[in-house]
């Protein structure tokens, strides 16, 4: 079954690489401007569940990699059974200097908290997102804390260790 999905993808789009990782896993690598088209295509094909949206910081290549993990329930389709459930990992890279990407909340509304989280922890801006407000963190960080160049030990030393104990107030 994954062969047929692979053939469909390769025959429809030009600049993509499709590789079969396991029996039920397909990795698709695309340029970042083609993400929306391919997601729309896959959703129409039945992959209507966005399981995860995550980011990876490739600091040496100066790029962020975004992974969209799609899967399908396909309850209405007799062709697929539960054991054949297919996962598609859609990967795209954006530059580290200008981390912008168009939002996918128009296609998958449940991507909204994922995009807020990634915006907060990696500093990637999703254009057209309805509210990119803080989600998890309380403090303002100069560098978003999940980037590889964020030095957590230095941060702890500068912020948390500088706060005095109340017992030491007279010193």
């Amino acid at each position, binding site marked *: 079954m994954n062969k047929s999905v692979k053939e469909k993808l390769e025959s429809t789009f030009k600049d993509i690489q499709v590789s079969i990782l396991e029996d039920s896993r397909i990795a698709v690598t695309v340029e970042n401007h083609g993400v929306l088209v391919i997601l729309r295509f896959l959703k129409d094909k039945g992959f209507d569940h966005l399981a995860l949206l995550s980011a990876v910081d490739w600091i040496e290549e100066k790029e962020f990699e975004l992974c969209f993990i799609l899967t399908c329930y396909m309850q209405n389709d007799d062709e697929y059974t539960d054991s054949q459930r297919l996962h598609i990992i859609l990967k795209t890279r954006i530059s580290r200097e200008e981390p912008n990407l168009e939002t996918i909340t128009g296609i998958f509304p449940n991507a909204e908290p994922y995009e807020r989280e990634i915006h907060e922890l990696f500093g990637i801006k999703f254009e057209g997102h309805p509210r990119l407000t803080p989600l*998890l963190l*309380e403090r303002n960080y100069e560098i978003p804390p999940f980037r590889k160049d964020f030095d957590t030990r230095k941060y702890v030393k500068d912020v*948390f260790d500088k*706060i005095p104990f*109340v017992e030491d*107030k007279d010193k």
Partner: protein
Amino acid sequence: MDRNQITKWFKAPAKMANKYSLHVIYFCTGCGIIEVPPVITSRWDAERFGVIPVATPRQANLFLITGYVSVKTLRAIIRTYEQMPEPKYTVGFGSCPINGGMYWDSYNTIKHLDKYIPIDGWIAGCMPRPEAIFIAVTHLWTLIDKEMANGYVKYRENYEYYRKNQEKVLGKLEWPPLFPVSDEPRGNVQ
């Protein structure tokens, strides 16, 4: 009732009543809360020690902080602690509130909880056994007897310092001070 304690009951009945009916508000942060359901239910029945969970901080006089404290949780912890009526006691459960534990280099976990609110006792371990809660409770009884569990008195006296530390982490606090504070902290001026 223990006959040896009968003089204590006559001397300070309110204190003894407080001591033997610790109403606990559990702060369900981190992983430590997984030890609390067996403690309050029939396996290690905590009510043998007078320890009983309550619904709101306004009914509680023991505050058990289980597990690591993120910056966002600290805001809720302070608000909960300030709502509790006096006398109130706090116990940090697990190694994370003591000094950060395994989150010692985390960007969003506070390391020493006693910089922000006073703590009367610690239970070390990762995780402590449920029995450790009872050891802590019996230690707390001793401390209350000797008037050493005076964290809430310390909080009242050093409120400016505690609030300054809280503001250093959380930024501006949106609730008014619990006790009156002057603009210049006392004692700091030589």
